[in-house]
């Protein structure tokens, strides 16, 4: 054993370091233990941890704007909104392309309701504009058509835009489909994904961009084929723009297409132009409101602090973070109220639960189990029934008021308001959460031998001193456990406050529920929930610092 003293680690009999062989011996045990808890671990991960992580993620996620309006978001980078004017045609052009794709994919209304959380009115603005966006470019279509009827033909466009490889694949695919059809077989293979001809993107950049978006959209959305569908009107606007800025574009093509293009390039100079901005303003004049644009710009990034700011009564504007309008500030008030009321409920539970738990732990077995059943009885009735019975008891025409009036304590025309306010909420929730205070208290008190109090008394302490100096400190762990249980349950409660809280007794969770199920503003709900979670964790930490978490016991 001498070699183990100073200069080397302790060695096992076979010469390996003792620590290492111990670890090896324990590994099998640990693996077995892990195997035992694995089902629960996986269940908790999937059903509890992952949703929480997902919720945290939702509170900052904001990809919908840049996903739906990619071109507009890029174009808006250089727009500073100064001068209080809406942006010019360039940005509206980008918006046209984005909007036609989004409208065809039915995504514009989703984005509209997302942005409506930030600025009222965007929802209907987007919905209305979605119906009108396909009109933009119709004038160009007419002018191209007047020039040559071939522009109306899907085949012209396929010849111009599609890669030869795709054309060949497409032909093969439609033959296979026709064969399957004649053999009366199911044919489920989708059309090969559209591919652009090399060089088109350089010669006709806008057209290439929007046409391939068109082709992919109708392929995936409507299961149509670009070989059969005439392009959207805005595609003609793109072609006009490309030809106007690059009259030489035809040189990149050959054959009929080159001829068509050179003919068009020569003619576009005389085309009647239209402004996409005017078209949008014509659909809804709100597009001229720079606030709409600064809202889009402010929420363009993929991640936003907007939800968190809203959750603390601030708002994100183009000019930075600002307080929410005073008459819409509600969340800080609700957070404070939730904390305050949860604390009140917690203290009421201590006040009411402590004596009961004390009694429970000191009564003989038979009486105490009867009393324990009474304590647990509320658990066996539905939450709604319990809450509703409090309504019956506390309302103005309710049992308690009736009794008070009958005794003469309260005048009939001046009955007490005990429900639909904070008082009612505290009463009902204290009742519901009381068992969560009593049970840990009881199980801790049960372990305090009566000899402590007797010892204190024999040492000369009065009943009160014996209780306060000797019994109470030993029941503190039970109070701690009860408080944590009650407080955390109370802070997230929403059914009872919803039913009996009236206007002054509702909690932040009622707003979270509203945003989850009614307004569908899940981002804000997630941010509120995250803040609530953080508040609970902070309070837990504070509790640990002050009381010590070791000082919590369930018995």
């Amino acid at each position, binding site marked *: 054993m001498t070699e183990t003293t100073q200069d080397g680690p302790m060695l096992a009999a076979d010469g390996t370091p003792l620590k290492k062989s111990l670890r090896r011996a324990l590994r099998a045990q640990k693996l077995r233990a892990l195997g035992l808890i694995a089902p629960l671990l996986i269940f908790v991960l*999937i*059903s509890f941890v992952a949703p929480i992580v997902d919720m945290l993620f939702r509170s900052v996620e904001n990809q919908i704007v840049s996903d739906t309006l990619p071109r507009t978001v890029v174009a808006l980078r250089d727009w500073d909104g100064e001068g209080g004017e809406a942006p010019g045609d360039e940005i509206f052009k980008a918006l046209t392309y984005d909007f036609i794709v989004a409208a065809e994919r039915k995504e514009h*209304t989703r984005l509209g*309701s997302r942005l409506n959380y930030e600025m*009222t009115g965007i929802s209907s603005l987007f*919905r209305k504009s979605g119906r009108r966006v396909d009109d933009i470019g119709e004038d160009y279509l007419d002018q191209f058509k007047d020039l040559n009827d071939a522009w109306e033909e899907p085949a012209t466009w396929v010849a111009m835009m599609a890669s030869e490889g795709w054309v060949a694949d497409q032909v093969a695919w439609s033959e296979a489909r026709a064969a399957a059809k004649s053999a009366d077989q199911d044919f489920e293979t989708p059309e090969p994904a559209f591919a652009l001809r090399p060089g088109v993107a350089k010669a006709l950049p806008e057209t290439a961009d929007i046409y391939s978006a068109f082709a992919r959209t109708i392929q995936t959305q409507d299961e149509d084929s670009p070989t059969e569908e005439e392009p959207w009107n805005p595609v003609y606007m793109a072609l006009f723009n490309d030809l106007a800025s690059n009259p030489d574009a035809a040189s990149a093509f050959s054959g009929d297409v080159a001829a068509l293009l050179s003919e068009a390039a020569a003619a576009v100079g005389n085309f009647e132009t239209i402004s996409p901005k005017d078209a949008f303003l014509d659909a809804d004049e709100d597009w001229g409101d720079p606030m709409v644009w600064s809202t889009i710009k402010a929420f363009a990034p993929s991640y936003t602090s907007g939800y968190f700011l809203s959750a603390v009564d601030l708002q994100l504007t183009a000019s930075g973070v600002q307080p929410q309008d005073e008459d*819409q500030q*509600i969340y800080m008030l609700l957070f404070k109220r939730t904390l305050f009321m949860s604390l009140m409920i917690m203290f009421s539970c201590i006040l009411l639960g402590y004596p009961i738990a004390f009694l429970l732990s000191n009564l003989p077995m038979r009486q105490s189990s009867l009393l324990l059943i009474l304590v647990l009885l509320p658990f066996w009735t539905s939450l709604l029934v319990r809450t509703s019975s409090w309504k019956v008891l506390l309302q103005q*025409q309710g049992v308690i008021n009736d009794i008070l009036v009958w005794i003469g304590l309260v005048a009939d025309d001046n009955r007490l308001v005990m429900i639909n306010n904070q008082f009612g909420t505290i009463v009902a929730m204290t009742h519901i959460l009381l068992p969560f205070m009593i049970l840990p208290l009881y199980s801790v008190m049960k372990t305090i031998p009566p000899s402590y109090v007797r010892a204190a008394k024999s040492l000369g302490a009065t009943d009160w001193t014996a209780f306060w100096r000797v019994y109470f400190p030993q029941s503190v762990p039970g109070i701690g456990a009860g408080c944590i249980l009650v407080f955390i349950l109370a802070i997230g409660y929403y059914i009872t406050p919803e039913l009996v809280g009236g206007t002054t007794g509702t909690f932040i969770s009622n707003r979270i529920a509203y945003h989850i199920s009614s307004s*569908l503003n899940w981002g804000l709900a997630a941010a509120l929930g995250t803040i609530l979670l953080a508040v609970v964790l902070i309070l837990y930490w504070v509790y640990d610092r002050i009381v010590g978490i070791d000082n919590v016991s369930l018995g």
Partner: protein
Amino acid sequence: MKLKTTMLMAASAIAAAPAVVAQEMADSMTLVSWGGAYQQSQVNAYSDPYQANNAGLEIVWDSSSNEAVAKLRAMSEAGNITWDLVDVVAADAMRLCDEGLAMEIDADEDLAAAPDGTSASDDFGDLLVSDCFIPQIVYSTTFGYRTDVAEWNGKEPDDICDIFDLETFPGQRSLEKRPINNLEWALYCDGVAMDDIYDVLETEEGQDRALAKLDTIKDSVVWWSAGADTPQLLADGEVVIGSTYNGRLFSVIVEQKQPVAMLWDAQVFDLDGWIIPAGLPEDRLARVMDFVKFATDTQRLADQAKYISYGPARASSAPLVGKHAELGIEMAPHMPTDPANSKNSILYNFDFWADYRDDLDAKFQAWLAQ
């Protein structure tokens, strides 16, 4: 994002396990509605006759309409739609349509024409408020009052603005704990013409004006959040007058015979109907479309009114409305659409509320909390 999808799928797979089992059965369809008497009226008028003609079809009812919007979004994100047809109010239908969660329909193609050949789109008319919405009923939010209030000295309210008259009609009122309807009534009783209400409400001043009007009775208001609250409060004598859905008041007055009467003035019309979740597989979709075509035809909508006092959404159904199935009374006078009842009424402005709902709700809640 991958993780999220996987996880949501797993979570909803657990939650939706019973529904999945149901779908694997030969022929089954899950309909979502509001439960209670309303759902029962749909069973009686729609699904029972349909099943009589389609032996072997199983119809599963799920009473989750009050959280349909959130659940549909969760199902869609998880890529596992377990519902086939969902009953929602029009505002929710619009929201679902905007979110891409409901399928767009073509009224003339997908729905039955009226017996006289009028196309479905003309028969439903303006009630097709959203591309995804198939209206069933017109209901209204209106007021009921107790007829035995001593302090009123024999007077009974007959004007919506009596709600704001605490002098003549003292006592607690119950109003819904949301801005919708309340702000309209407040502005109307503050002197705004019926047609100007939404224009005024679009402005900051108009909103403040509406809240200021509500301020005058705020201390006497109990705020409800479930449709059953007001009937209960009226029956208990907790409030003397309160707003709720007209069908709820019908059952308090006619079925339970409580001393309560209807105040039809300035009732707010709203619509309830079906939406079909987007992304249903073809076989399920075909079945649902067949059911919807049957369940929203003229006769079926008229039949529903035998069981509940809501007006059929088709113009052609109105003349067919008959007597209550059990009580044997004429239902027409109890319909919100009855000419005598709808002399003065407000049509809920869906576009306005789609835009202003979040904003005004925040403002309203902040006002309530003050």
